């Protein structure tokens, strides 16, 4: 369970271009569910996602992971929590070109220093489960958009995180690939993963896979939940 209490986030605080992206968000995200954050551009969805995923700290307010308050932790501890608890799928996929699909998948595990062979086997198993086994040695820039997204998903899952975070995952996909993505989400949900994503794609927010949709506007929560 992730609990956010009176979360506020400012960029360029104290400067002429100060911007308050979030203005007092109270939200509880249940474990083993799919939660979608929706709203227009600039509403604060992605900012909220970065705070939940320990990529940044709120200007004020508390973020609780389970019973632990993680909002004031230094970068080192946040990084540790981030790589063990969260897996990220970015809008642009953010894969490292020049590397093979398998190498990209293994990247988040490198700093953990686990067994090399076991890591290879885990990466191969993930790529197989996402029907990318035959493309594991291909460089990522040779892959199609859908394949790249599946590599990004495999990368997000390599450290077996409890929570998967996806930022606008279908923004660069056509309808067929978006449906395929939702199928993957469903299977992950069945495996007991907690999934938090941002989207204003009706195909996502209206999907049965999504348990809850939270709407944001101008940094405020517009609680028109489904």
């Amino acid at each position, binding site marked *: 369970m992730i609990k956010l209490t009176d979360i506020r986030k400012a960029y360029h605080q104290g400067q002429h271009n100060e911007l308050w992206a979030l203005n007092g968000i109270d939200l509880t995200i249940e474990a083993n569910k799919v939660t979608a954050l929706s709203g227009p551009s600039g509403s604060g969805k*992605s*900012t909220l*996602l*970065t705070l939940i995923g320990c*990529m*940044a700290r709120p200007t004020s307010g508390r973020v609780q992971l389970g019973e632990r308050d993680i909002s004031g932790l230094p*970068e*080192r501890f946040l*990084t540790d929590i*981030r*790589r063990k608890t969260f897996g*990220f799928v*970015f809008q642009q996929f*953010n*894969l*490292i*070109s*020049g*590397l093979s699909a398998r*190498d990209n998948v293994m*990247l*988040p*595990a*490198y*700093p*953990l*220093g*686990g*067994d*090399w062979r076991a*890591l290879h086997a885990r990466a191969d198993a993930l790529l197989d489960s996402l029907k990318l086994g035959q493309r594991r040695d291909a460089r990522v820039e040779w892959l199609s958009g859908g394949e790249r997204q599946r590599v990004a998903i495999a*990368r997000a899952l390599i*450290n077996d995180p409890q929570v998967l975070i996806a*930022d606008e995952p279908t923004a660069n996909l056509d309808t067929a690939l978006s449906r395929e993505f939702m199928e993957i989400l469903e299977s992950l949900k069945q495996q007991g993963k907690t999934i938090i994503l941002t989207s204003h794609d009706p195909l996502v927010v209206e999907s049965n896979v999504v348990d809850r949709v939270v709407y944001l506007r101008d940094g405020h929560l517009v609680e028109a939940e489904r």
Partner: protein
Amino acid sequence: MQIWIAKQKALIDFTLSSLARRKLKNLGLLLVYTVIVFLLASVMLYTHALRHEAAQVLKNSPEVIVQRMVAGRHDLIPPRYLEKLGRIRGVQHNEGRLWGYFYDNVVSANYTLMAPSQESHGFGQVADGKIVIGAAVARERGLAPGNLISFRSYTGKLFVFTVAAVLPHEAELVSADLLLLSEADFRAFFDIPAGYYNDIALSVANPQEVRNIAGKISEALPDARIILREEVLRTYESIFNWREGIVLVLLSGSILAFAIFAWEKASGLSAEEKREIGILKAIGWETGDVLKMKFWEGALVSLAAFLLGYVAAYLHVFHFSAALFEPVLKGWSVLYPRFELVPVVDGFQIVTLFFFTVFPYTVATIVPIWRAAITDPDAVMRG
């Protein structure tokens, strides 16, 4: 510990694939850096080995050499000098030496001619009418044992010698241009009367007394010039230092240009690299992990360059006779000695070179990364 090793292995693995992705840039860097190390190491190895060689050769040379000076010029030693020197206490042994130079028009080269005594030089006596020649002379004149060779002496007389032997190749550093004759032939060739010598070689009983004995000699023979072995050694040392300095000055421009190029390439961070660092941070890498990875990148390139450059320099110096520096660092006139130096490597020199090449390069790769690596991981999400 095992986790730490596994982590470093993973980082090195990623670094290697990272280096392979920017093949052209990294191979260029490696090449440039290898050339810098190669040049510096060649000069260092060469002059060190040459100094060592000279010291080895001079170790067996006489402790004191006495020459006679007339009007500030080197003149022949008259017969009574040997006897006078023999009376000085502390002189263990004295021996008159016969040597001179001869210009050979055929190959436009100067030869050193000597009449060896039993004790000196280890080449043994040469029979009358025979000649023993240095390897470079044999090469230039196309001679082999049994061949005849004739020289017209300074008196205008023609002398014909039979080549008895060619001096061993290993001794070429000191014998490239050497011709050994019998004493009678030598005296006849240069028209030096019996009892006269070019100089006198002395050995002393107690090496601590060399300077005292030198003082006594100059009292007994006021027209003598006394040359001590330690002074010769010091002169050689300064000559090689000077030559090393000249080469380094000549090379410094290009080495500096290479170094600036390597530094600029190593420290410049492309937009693509910045983006990748952002991705790594976003997927769970710490600032320290990114720095470690970049450390390995710098260390692997500079270490590889150091090893390649050093090995290439070693081969260049000890197997190819330092072909690039030959004209500056060794030899005289026309007959360059062709010799292979005995490989001598100085640990302190290696450490110095390592510190001045690997260390700055590694720092050059890490510093710009530091700035990129401390960016917030959410930059990727926002970007």
